[in-house]
């Protein structure tokens, strides 16, 4: 059967509805699959139909029904008394209002909890007074700020000590390892000379740095003085950093 582009256009809906005969359908398929004009036409029509069917059904505008009823049946009698109150309360049952109310309540509870305004074990009505909420929130904010400042300050001290101790990365990790495992090669110029004198020099250097640090940080002065009073040669750099860090952490 001979099939033309005009036939494709004319019978496209019948084809999509499955109303063509078997012969017509075969001819349609053969033509469309080989025609540069009809292939995009069929696919775009199918796409258009699916787009049309995917269009959402709009909600009726809320006032439309009331406007129609007012225009046809006349203005409705005003509801008064209990009936009006019940109608008003029924409005709160709408899902939109309920979701909104729940989210507002959740936010309010979260703010109250975070601000520490309410003791959930012993809640009191006075906790909900605005002045109490403000006072507790203010207190919590200041406490959080003070804790944060102290934490940052402690971290700074620890990092400063560790960075000063790491300045010489050749420091042996303990006294046993103080002696280099391999003898220095002749002609070596990388500064890795005999360990003992260099270790002692470095220990003196670290000791002096710790003394300066102890003066800067009075709280640590007692702990650092132990370290800097000649016992440093028994403690390695890494262990010292760890020991001071640990003490600071505990404090």
């Amino acid at each position, binding site marked *: 059967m001979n099939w033309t582009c005009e036939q494709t*256009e*004319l*019978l*496209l*809906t*019948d084809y999509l509805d499955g109303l063509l005969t078997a012969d017509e359908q075969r001819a349609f398929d053969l033509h469309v699959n080989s025609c540069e004009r009809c292939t995009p*036409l069929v*696919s*775009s*029509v*199918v*796409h*258009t*139909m699916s*787009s*049309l*069917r*995917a*269009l*959402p*059904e*709009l*909600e*009726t*505008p809320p006032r*439309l*029904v009331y*406007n*129609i*009823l007012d*225009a*046809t*049946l006349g203005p409705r009698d005003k509801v008064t008394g209990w009936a009006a109150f019940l109608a008003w309360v029924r409005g709160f049952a709408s899902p939109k209002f309920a979701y909104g109310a729940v989210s507002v309540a959740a936010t309010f509870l979260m703010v109250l909890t975070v601000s520490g305004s309410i003791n959930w074990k012993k809640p009191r009505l006075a906790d909900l007074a605005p002045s109490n909420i403000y006072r507790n929130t203010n207190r919590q904010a200041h406490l959080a700020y003070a804790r944060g400042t102290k934490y940052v300050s402690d971290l700074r001290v620890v990092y400063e000590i560790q960075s000063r101790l790491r300045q010489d990365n050749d420091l042996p990790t303990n006294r046993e390892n103080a002696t280099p495992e391999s003898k220095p090669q002749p002609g070596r110029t990388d500064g890795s000379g005999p360990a003992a004198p260099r270790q002692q020099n470095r220990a003196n250097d670290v000791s002096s740095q710790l003394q300066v640090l102890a003066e800067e940080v009075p709280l640590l002065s007692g702990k650092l003085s132990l370290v800097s009073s000649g016992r440093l040669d028994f403690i390695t750099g890494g262990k010292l950093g760890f020991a001071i860090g640990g003490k600071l952490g505990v404090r």
Partner: protein
Amino acid sequence: MEQDAQLVQQCLQGDGSAWEELVRRHSRRIFNICYRFTGNRTEAEDLSQDVFLRVYRTLASYRSAHGGFATWMTSVTRNLLIDHYRRTKRDRVTDSLDDKMPVVENKESSGRRPDEQALLGELSAQVQNALTHLSPELREAVILRDLQQLEYSEIQAVLAVPEGTVKSRINRGRIELARILQHMGVRPS
């Protein structure tokens, strides 16, 4: 359908609540037809109200033997929409398609991909826009078939034309709409 006929009878006997029920049952469908035809919410709302006013006034002329109440209402809606189209035809500014139609943004060049919901919303707006560019006779046929999912016989009753004409209009409407969408840059993915 039977329930509609019963409600109509109650309305004719002066039962206001029956009329209210009819309005609630059909207002969404009528509003959607009006919106898809005009592409304007305010116009659709006003036209829906006019439809119900006319139905209310001519309710006595409805005979269930002539078809379902929904089909009859759709027919009234269609007549009002065509009247409205003819009335406002002179007022409409007839710009060329190139001027009026938004062209799809080139996604690759824009550098960011909108999420699926945004894409769907964009496509809906483009399809709605394309619909309003169809001639009214093709537009109503496509709306009734592809949006309202009416049978050919129901569309035939609404449009008061032979079934062959209905099919032909739907066919031409779909092809024309596909071409308009292609012109707007919307292509099958």
